[in-house]
């Protein structure tokens, strides 16, 4: 089968005091090729752990990940990752960062150049190809991170709060960029975010996770991502449906957070 299959994943971490904490419990999820999934949840619900398992950085205690029917055993170029920030290589300029993946595969810089330059055009950095990373703004750096990931032509793109550190205006522009890249490239994307709005706007499917232990709480299918490819994202925010969903999810997460705080008080 094609697509990404997350089967019965459980993950527990050993604590220094001898106990253990269960970060994920029986998470099962199937993604068709080309789907855009956004994952939302309160802090500590295991969403980043789940992403790290899919990426291959962590080995789950139980269960397995299949990509196109093949079991995932470690990190690889078929599953690209975009981090919140600080994952670019400051000792390379913009073009070298984007060309990093092809270079690791042994593709010569000259041969990769056309592709790299094209991707930099796509993300709007055509005038910044020779710049150092630290000369760019936060939003531009994330554009580089997106281009760097795409240069490897991965089957799945994993995004760990890629827009979390950006200001509101830049964030909105980048959301449009992510939608357009998704539509143009047809990649499977898993996007983790803290922002309910972002999850609604960018997710074709939206997963709300609950903490202690981390599990899937509720799933939505949304129309906004498809609309957003052509329309202004601000227009979509005026939809009645959008507003209702936003309130519903916000309240859901709010209740989870309150439950955690309550428990902490009893424990303390």
């Amino acid at each position, binding site marked *: 089968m094609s697509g990404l299959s997350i089967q019965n994943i459980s993950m527990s971490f050993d604590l220094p005091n001898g106990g253990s904490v269960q970060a994920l419990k029986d998470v099962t999820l199937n993604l068709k090729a080309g789907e855009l999934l956004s994952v939302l949840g309160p802090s500590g619900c295991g969403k980043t752990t789940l992403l790290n398992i899919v990426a*291959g950085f962590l080995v789950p205690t139980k269960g397995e990940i299949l990509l196109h029917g093949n079991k995932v055993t470690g990190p690889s*170029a078929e599953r690209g990752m975009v981090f919140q920030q600080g*994952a670019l290589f*400051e000792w390379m300029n913009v073009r070298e960062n984007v060309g990093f*993946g092809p270079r*690791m595969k042994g593709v010569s810089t000259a041969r990769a150049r056309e592709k790299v330059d094209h991707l930099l055009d796509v993300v709007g950095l055509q005038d910044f190809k020779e710049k150092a990373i630290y000369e760019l703004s936060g939003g531009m750096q994330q554009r580089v991170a997106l281009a*760097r990931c795409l240069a490897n032509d991965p089957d799945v793109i*994993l995004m760990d709060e890629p827009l979390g550190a950006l200001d509101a205006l830049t964030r909105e522009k980048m959301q449009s960029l992510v939608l357009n890249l998704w539509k143009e490239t047809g990649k499977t994307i898993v996007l983790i975010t803290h922002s309910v709005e972002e999850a609604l706007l960018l997710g074709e499917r939206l997963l709300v996770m609950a903490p202690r232990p981390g599990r899937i709480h509720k799933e939505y299918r949304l129309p906004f991502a498809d609309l957003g490819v052509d329309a202004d994202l601000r227009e979509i925010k005026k939809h009645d449906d959008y507003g209702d969903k936003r309130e519903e999810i916000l309240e859901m997460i709010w209740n989870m957070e309150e439950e955690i705080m309550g428990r902490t008080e009893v424990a303390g």
Partner: protein
Amino acid sequence: MHGTGVEVTLPEIESGSGFAKNDVLAVKAYRTKLLKWDANDSETRKGGAKIVAVNGQLIVFGTDVDAGDLKIALTQKGTLNVKPNKGIQMEPIWLPAPEDVWNRLKEISTSGFKNYTLAEHLGFSLFRVVIGFFLGALVGIPLGYAMGLSDWFRGWFDPIVEFMRPVPPLALIPLVIIWAGIGEVGKTILLFLAALWIMAIASRAGVSGVRISKVHAAYSLGASKWQIMRYVIVPNSLPEIFTGARVAMGVCWGTVVAAELVAAEKGAGMMIMVASKFQQTDIVILGIILIGIIGFGIDMLMRWAERILVPWKGRG
């Protein structure tokens, strides 16, 4: 009254009339002189003549009369002791005048000091620092990398490195002299040890300080372990290593001067130590200033290299 090294001729005076003739006396600055006032008189001390007052003030043995620029005292034998005021001036042995230091600089940079020219003294100190630092970095950086990458290495070497790092290199001088003598080998070992621990700790910090997201990013871009080492961990550690190198060069410079103070044939430290023994304060001052300038110059040079070679430092 006259300065040191100045030839003076006594001014001509009228000897005057009466039983006590006029006297004239020249005194060097910072010195005193006895005035045998009766040498040219008809009435002498042997004959019972005595001085009872100076400038109208009574004088006895043990009290001074203040006569403006000088003090006059009566000795037990009845002569006068003339003591010019020293003022707040410093004798050259305490603090030489700037022009004396400048002249000495010109002198020893051409004719040299203790068989070697000034440039040779300074150059040799610098040469020792460069060799010692180079050897320290050559061993320290791989050691630090190994400690940063392998728990086994960290387990074995961390206690040694953490213990040796705070030991001042100067405290090792006696041991190094016992082991290797006072020659070049001993100094090289000392400077090697001064640089080694600093470089090991800096490069370990550089390796273990790599952001895990950078390593993860490289993995998910298809890099192998060796490629991550080569393209991520090593460049990421360079800023820390440069900081360590700056500190190590400074410590080595301080250590070489101290080691040369103890024993050396040439070098900046030897120069000022020998000069001190011969009370050539101007050379000591000159040496201190030059040592300071070179130390500052080393630091500036390292900063410049840092700006050129690791421009991303502190901007990650």
